[in-house]
């Protein structure tokens, strides 16, 4: 517990509290030391402690029985009511039903409209607005407020509000807003004790009315911080800038200089470029304050994103933050598991939803985490390998024989059954949800987590509240409802106690801190816009007596004023530029800055901090920093040199030895992805398969009529494509593409036969030892023969020019040369198959010679590799473009250096 500051000069906040304390004591001097007869209305409970301290100090007694110090909300809550109060969840359901029945809004999010309407109805209640009996009168009222004549649109607006307002206020039951009013009315009726009110900004209408009613029966004293600040010399500049809009800046400045020649405002402003710098500045400043011994530091988060970043940065330095603001339920991972479960159900267990769900730490909490993880990784590997996209049953089939995975899936199925389909009431849905979550072990998981527990409690509470509601909702409607509830609910994390606290501007009323950091003070956040209602406009709100935007802004200005008045160490930060765009400072602070500069020649800029930011980062324990990047060229132990190689492996070796090393020595591969559409490589594979089947059936084409061949080839194609076509309509486009090439393909075949070539086989696997230590293996697309001659071919779905290019330089693409060697072929060619063009492309060099050279080089390179030769990352841009190893060789980090070593500047070593 904190003791009263005894240090030096009194702070301004102490002056405020002292005057409140003395006033109260003076009013109750006969009752001292028992002040229980008085009531003090606080904006929040943090003000209680300093007030108590000042009371006892001013009274100069060993102890004082304190007045009742309470917030109005709590006080009202303590009043018992006779009638029951209908919870908002039930009202929303009723309203939804009313909207649904009236069919006013097509395509609209009715829950959203219901929410907006409820807000409006509550506001009307709070501000004691009664709508005229007659809709026409209401319309006329609107016309006056809008200063316009009412057309269809205005009539509709009037009608919706009018009709629903009457519908919803017909019942005898109380809603929350009316209950609050009744309670306040009762309190005011029973008023007897003197009431003291600590105020920082205007009260909401019902509260203000209550004070007036109370005043009629008992004395009320209001301590308005705005007025108190106005009388305080230290706050003169604040009052001038934020409260007094009548005089011009220069005059104000002159007056200030005259009456308060010394600047007293302890505010500093820091304009950052970008979010990260703002967060850094806040982080460093808070740590400076901590080092300077400040023990009660507030971060006032106007911009939640920055606040989040600051929290993380501070945690790096071991500073934890107490958070008074809440987290919206829907942003918590505890809610994620719940929604992902519903997503998975809705998408028939689309694999991404499913895996995401299973990777949540909250599911299957009744079994050890590593078991769940093992099962989900197993499942994921299966799913990736077999490319199964959805359907629970498909996954079950896939997991045949894998007990762990099976159990997981079976539980999912049970849970899915528990949640059922069809329609039921909201509470029915919630109950089913709870049951399914129970089956999944999610309830268990959530219970162990503070946010999770709160989520469970909320679900339960809603279920209870809605128990009596009989409206039925479809699953989709219920999901919408749930999403809205989770968006509206908050969780406050109370697990941390710390001298640094995160709070909101409105929660700082009448509070003083050792230091305050205002985060995100740009024009967009201060004043914030609030969420304007879709109903009416500001002018109408004003004329109906509802709060206006200006009132909302004024409130924030007052809160800012109060904060600056109560606190004498404040840094406000904002992003002066954001993504390269200018970003303006909050107008309130802007005004203050200009006035202050005019009056005192000081623009309030914080100038020290900027230069500290880079050097003031907390770093993890020392570990040597990396050397400047350089081209890797590993030598490999002979034990790792492969004993066999495929032509594509050889190609990789030629294109880039490092790539070969990564693929074939480290044996690293990209993970399979579940592919949902047909891709070019599928297409290639299928065409290979089709041709294989076709040629096996028709080895000699000349023996068959052309039409029969075409028909057969079409038939086979349709068969091979059938599963893909059934799955994906777009596969037809690929099928068509291939079918369009069929005539050209048959022409080319016929030509080849006429040249004497006979089909000998396709998809032929081979494994040929090249020497004692290395074998060449692979599969040949196709082999033809002609009078003692042999030809090997490879189908390619690319255009001929491309292929020619590949073959231009000898030995850069070794596929054909390798096949030629294996079959001692006389001819080798790529067969380029494109839409209505089939072309044969052969290497321009002498084939046997090329094949020979190619094998010799392979053996030579392997010998060198075994002898420890390095495998450099020699890829040219063309090879690198689609290389999956670019993260391993890290070419972009060193390529400039490698090309131009002499101009490379020395790299300064960072670190300690």
């Amino acid at each position, binding site marked *: 517990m904190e*003791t009263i500051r005894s240090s030096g000069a009194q702070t301004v906040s102490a002056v405020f509290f002292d005057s409140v304390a003395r006033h109260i004591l003076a009013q109750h001097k006969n009752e001292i030391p028992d002040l229980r007869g008085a009531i003090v209305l606080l904006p929040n409970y943090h003000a209680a402690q300093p007030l*108590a301290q000042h009371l006892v100090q001013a009274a100069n007694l060993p102890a004082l029985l304190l007045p009742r110090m309470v917030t109005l909300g709590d006080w009202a809550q303590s009043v018992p009511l006779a009638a029951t109060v209908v919870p908002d969840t039930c009202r929303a359901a009723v309203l939804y039903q009313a909207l649904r029945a009236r069919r006013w809004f097509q395509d609209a999010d009715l829950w959203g409209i219901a929410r907006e309407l409820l807000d409006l109805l509550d506001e009307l209640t709070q501000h004691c607005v009664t709508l005229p009996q007659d809709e026409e009168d209401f319309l006329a009222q609107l016309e006056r407020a809008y200063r316009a004549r009412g057309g269809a649109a205005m009539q509709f607006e009037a009608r919706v509000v009018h009709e629903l307002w009457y519908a919803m206020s017909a019942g005898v039951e109380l809603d929350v807003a009316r209950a609050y009013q009744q309670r306040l009315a009762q309190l005011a009726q029973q008023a007897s004790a003197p009431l003291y009110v600590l105020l920082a900004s205007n009260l909401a209408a019902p509260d203000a009315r209550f004070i007036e009613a109370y005043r009629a029966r008992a004395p009320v004293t209001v301590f308005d911080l705005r007025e108190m600040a106005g009388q305080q010399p230290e706050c003169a500049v604040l009052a001038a800038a934020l409260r007094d809009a009548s005089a011009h800046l220069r005059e104000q400045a002159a007056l200030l200089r005259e009456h308060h020649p010394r600047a007293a405002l302890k505010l500093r402003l820091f304009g950052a470029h970008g979010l990260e710098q703002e967060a850094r500045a806040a982080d460093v400043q808070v740590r400076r304050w901590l080092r300077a011994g400040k023990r009660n530091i507030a971060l006032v988060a106007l911009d939640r994103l920055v606040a989040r970043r600051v929290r993380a940065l501070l945690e790096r330095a071991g500073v934890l933050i107490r958070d008074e603001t809440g987290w919206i339920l829907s942003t918590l991972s505890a809610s994620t598991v719940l929604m992902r479960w519903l997503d998975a159900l809705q998408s028939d267990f689309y694999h991404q939803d499913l895996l995401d769900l299973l990777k949540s730490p909250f599911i299957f909490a009744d079994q050890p985490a590593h078991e769940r993880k093992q099962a989900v990784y197993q499942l994921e590997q299966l799913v990736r390998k077999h490319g199964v996209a959805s359907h629970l049953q498909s996954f079950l089939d896939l997991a045949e024989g894998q007990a762990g995975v099976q159990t997981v899936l079976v539980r999912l199925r049970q849970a899915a059954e528990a949640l059922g389909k069809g329609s039921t009431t909201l509470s029915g849905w919630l109950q089913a949800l709870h049951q399914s979550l129970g089956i999944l072990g999610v309830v268990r998981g959530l219970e162990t987590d503070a946010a999770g527990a709160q989520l469970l409690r909320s679900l339960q509470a809603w279920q209870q509240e809605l128990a009596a509601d009989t409206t039925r909702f479809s699953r989709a409607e219920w999901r919408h409802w749930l999403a809205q509830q989770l968006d509206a609910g908050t969780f406050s994390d*109370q697990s941390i106690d710390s001298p640094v606290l995160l709070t909101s501007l409105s929660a700082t009323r009448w509070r003083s801190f050792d230091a305050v950091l205002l985060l995100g003070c740009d024009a967009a956040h201060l004043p914030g816009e609030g969420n304007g209602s879709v109903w009416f406009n500001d002018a109408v709100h004003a004329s109906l007596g509802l709060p206006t*935007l200006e009132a909302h802004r004024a409130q924030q200005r007052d809160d800012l004023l109060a904060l600056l008045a109560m606190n004498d160490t404040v840094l406000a930060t904002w992003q002066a530029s954001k993504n390269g765009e200018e970003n*303006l400072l909050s107008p309130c602070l802007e005004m203050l800055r*200009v006035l202050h500069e005019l009056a005192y020649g000081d623009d309030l800029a914080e100038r020290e901090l900027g230069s500290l930011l880079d050097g003031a980062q907390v770093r993890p324990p020392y570990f040597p920093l990396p050397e400047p990047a350089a081209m890797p060229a590993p030598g490999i132990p002979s034990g790792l040199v492969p004993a066999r190689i495929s032509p594509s492996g050889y190609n990789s070796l030629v294109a880039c030895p490092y790539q070969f090393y990564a693929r074939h020595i480290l044996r690293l591969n990209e993970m399979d992805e579940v592919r949902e559409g047909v891709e070019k490589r599928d297409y290639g594979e299928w065409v290979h398969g089709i041709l294989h089947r076709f040629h096996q059936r028709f080895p000699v084409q000349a023996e068959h009529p052309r039409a029969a061949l075409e028909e057969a080839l079409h038939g086979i194609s349709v068969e091979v494509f059938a599963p893909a076509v059934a799955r994906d309509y777009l596969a037809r486009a690929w099928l068509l593409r291939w079918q369009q090439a069929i005539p050209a393909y048959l022409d080319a075949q016929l030509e080849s036969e006429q040249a004497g070539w006979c089909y000998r086989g396709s998809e032929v696997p081979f494994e040929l030892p090249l020497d004692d230590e290395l074998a060449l293996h692979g599969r040949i697309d196709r082999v033809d023969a002609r009078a003692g001659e042999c030809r090997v071919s490879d189908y390619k779905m690319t255009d001929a020019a491309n292929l020619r290019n590949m073959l231009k330089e000898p030995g850069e693409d070794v596929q054909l040369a390798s096949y030629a060697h294996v079959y001692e072929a006389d001819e080798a060619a790529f067969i380029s198959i494109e839409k209505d063009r089939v072309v044969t492309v052969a290497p321009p060099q002498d084939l046997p010679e090329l094949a020979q050279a190619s094998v010799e080089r392979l053996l030579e*390179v392997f010998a060198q590799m075994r002898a420890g030769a390095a495998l450099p990352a020699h890829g040219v841009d063309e090879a690198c473009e689609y290389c999956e190893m670019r993260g391993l060789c890290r070419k972009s980090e060193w390529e400039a250096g490698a090309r131009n070593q002499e101009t490379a500047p020395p790299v300064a070593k960072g670190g300690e």
Partner: protein
Amino acid sequence: MEIKAALNPQHSVVVESCAGSGKTWLLVSRIVRLLLDGVQPGEILAITFTRKAAQEMQARLHEWLQLLAAGSDDEARQFLRERALDEIDDALLAKARGLYRDVLLAQPAITISTFHGWFMQVIRRAPLNSGVPAGMQLLERTAALREEAWQAFAGSLRDAPEGQLAREMQWLFEKYGLHGTRSLLENFVAKRAEWWAYSSGQQDAVQWAVERLRAEFGVDWDADPVADACADASLHAAVQTFAKVLATGTETQCSKANEIQVAWEVADAQERFAVLQNVLYTQADEPRSFKPTKKQDAETFLLARDALFGKLQAVRDTLSELEALRMNKAALHCGAALLEHYQELKLRSQQMDFTDLEWQVCRLLDQGDCAEYMQYKLDSRYRHVLLDEFQDTNPLQWQTLQAWFAAAAAAGSRPTVFVVGDPKQSIYRFRRADARLFGVARAFLHREFGARYLAQNETRRNAPAVLQAVNGVFEGEPDGFSDFAEHIAHHQGLPGYVEVLPLAAAKDQPPPTRAGEGAGIVLRNPLITPRAEEQSGAREIEAGQFAARIADIVASWSVQEAGGTPRRAEYRDIMVLVRKRTHLRVYEHALRARHIPFLSSRRGGLLDTLEAEDIQALLTFLITPFADLALAQALRSPLFSCSDEDLILLAQNADSGCWWPRLKHVAENGAASPQLQRAHRLLTGWLAHADKLPVHDLLDRIYFEGDLAHRYVAALPAEQREAARANLQAFMEIALSVDAGRYPSLPRFLAELRELRAAEEEAPDEGRAGESDHALRIYTVHEAKGLEAPVVWLLDANDMHHKTDSYGVLLDWPTNAPRPAHFSLYPDKRGRGNRRAPYFAAEEECARREEMNLLYVAMTRAKQALLVSGSGELAEASWYGRIAAVAGQGGNPLQMAVASAFPAFEGAGARSGAELAMLCQPVPAGRRLPHATVEQQRGTWLHALLQNMAPPNAVAEKEILQQRCGIPPGEMEPLWQQAQHLLALPALQRFFDSQHYRNACNEMSYVNANGELKRIDRLVEFDNEVWVLDYKTGPASDVAPYRAQVREYRIAMQSVYAGKAVRCALLFADGTLSEVE
């Protein structure tokens, strides 16, 4: 131009204002004048095209108003005089001084916004019954949703493979393949606003549109032009005539004549026509050339030839029309269906994209009633509308504005309108802007608003030397640039320089050394010899020259500061412009090779940078621990900087399974290097958190514990460091914003990144280095709009290869019409038919004009120096050719050595040096509170129940109690029982039954002399004594630990109840009451 007229708040004005002439100055000055005239901020609506420009305008306005408010009288007067205010009396001055505050605090505020920003405001207030869906969010990135729509569309076709749509789709596939078909349909979707406008009011829009096209094309569905032609005697005659004429010529001609004859003999009409075409047209489908020989009568020959080709062409044209019609039928049907899916998806997720927004607002304001309603529904009532960059307006926006003006007039408050723009800078046709609207608006505003027209051709930006080139190029009125007026430099003394570098030409390549010839083939050994980059192209040479020259510029040029003093040129003074990004890599390569730092505007590149990939790999590993390659990448990245020896070690431990268990294995058996050990240690920690921490928090832990930024900086060459650091930050910001979204998880985050990456144009940009960066900037001309630089370099300016549009939408939207007059699709250059030729021609003309506009924009970015380079054969119509034709050969006044303007490095100073050292140390503060056990919680609840159930003010209703004490339903019953039991215990009645005491008080607060707040659970006053009760949650136990606390109560109460004895007791949960002495 008369500024006075332009700023006169009473009049509407249209200003055509050249590049660099200070449009913003004019526009903001006008706002100031309006305010001075008594206009309320909320009555002003200023619209510009980018958020950045809007922000700048707002900032400029504040800056000026602040100057007026805070400046001296002289300054303020001077300011006002510059804005054409002559008589400045004290009242006006006072008014001017007050504007700052008025504007800052105005409610409603001044609106300075983009069209979309303003549309959003409008739509949020749209009437509820207008059919505009309420509560929509703006969808900025549409790629993912478009993909989803495409899949959904495909799914619907799969489910009805025999339906009409599927058949149409099949037809499209056959003709254009998957890719072409998709482009066609996507482009249709992209032009949906135009489609809606075109077909609005039609029951069956597709049917109607197809029928209209049929009429336009002048064909019938069952037409068979070939059969008709073959049956037509006149064609027969033409064929015969020509064949006969031809037969009198050379041998080749004779044989051709014969071929023609033979062809005509073919029985089947279709076949006959095909053969005939084969004979008469080339492979490229051009008519073969037939020329009369000397012997032949030229006139007869030509007559016969042209008659025949004319007839054939007519048939061919009809065929094209038919095909185009067929294609439009298929594509419109399918496109409309795809569009429906897309709209449906957005509706379901309550989202609206920019086009929807534009369309909805336009539609809204088109309904007279709604439009009028909007006039008063918005909080602001605009009386003055200012439109910036008007040449970028599209027809829909213009219509919206017109509707707005009309409604305002109907509501009795016609605004003044101020339009500023420059049709010469219209380069956004691809965003559907129509520069012709400038002229239309000018005429409209003149007619309806009496707007004055003013032109401004004096620029404050460019040096005379640069302007000379600009004038030279455009005075020739190239490609429809008919409206050019000579530009005049405001700063006549500003030194300038224009240079056109010689075109780079590819060196004659030595024939590839065929080591093979004769001596057998010798192949490259890849371990020893890298393959030669195919890099001898002309563009590479240009790039090399470019990089070398840049180095020279920073070494020896000077540029002028705003004040007129010269300083050394720096990288940031140079702006490099390219027309398109296609070849950027080549130039970047060259810059990198010279270690020249640059910021490339490669939009959407962030996620493809190596550092961002590293982090994605790491995160992938953390949530998918069997992703070996991802792990290996993370290990090799500067984060862990493991060597290949480390990887080899892991490769050798294949027995342990995946790479993660291998790493574990080697780390645990001590075989691992320090790097591997560190990796193991850190990864173990992160793996444990990967599914629990929010992504941002996890990333932050990785950044911090991994010392990420420092390690990247150490590993990277100097010129890459800033960019890497900025990219790491940008990545963090993505995580932050994604995390703030709903239902976050690491797998979802990674999936979203994949989507973003796939969405090319919309992918996140690379991070911006801080303000202090010293790097050269590379932009496309489109991006450079609105920017300027002392030195501008136009790269690759000789290139004339521009992608021709294909699979597009052909539109004719007359500028004043409410809807397009023509809407159709086309696949590519061929097969467009004849009837649409005027539209295509118009399109082409616009495209050519825009090409020149781009050049104008590019050239006018240069303040002082303009350099132009290119490669290949000189193309006179290229940008290079055009500038080369006019560029003089002046000396280079910028080549002047001056001292560098780098501020001397300001040391942080000794004091902050010490402070820094200290700040780098952690300052642990705060702690996690232990979780309350269930027992503790129950204790608290019981406590709360007792407080509420004991008189005075005892609560009896169980529900209320439960609610007030926050007790979960399941816990309530036993606790309630227990509390009741306690309160009813006979031994305690003297404390709880009001008959037995004088006064009691629950939860009584007091403050002691130290200022400590204390609370007594229950205070009971009797006649001569006061009891302090303290509730304890557990069963009865020793009272010793509570003595100090109780003593404090006693002393305090003794001071309050001076005359009475104060007694204290502990009340345990089992009902035991223990007095503490």
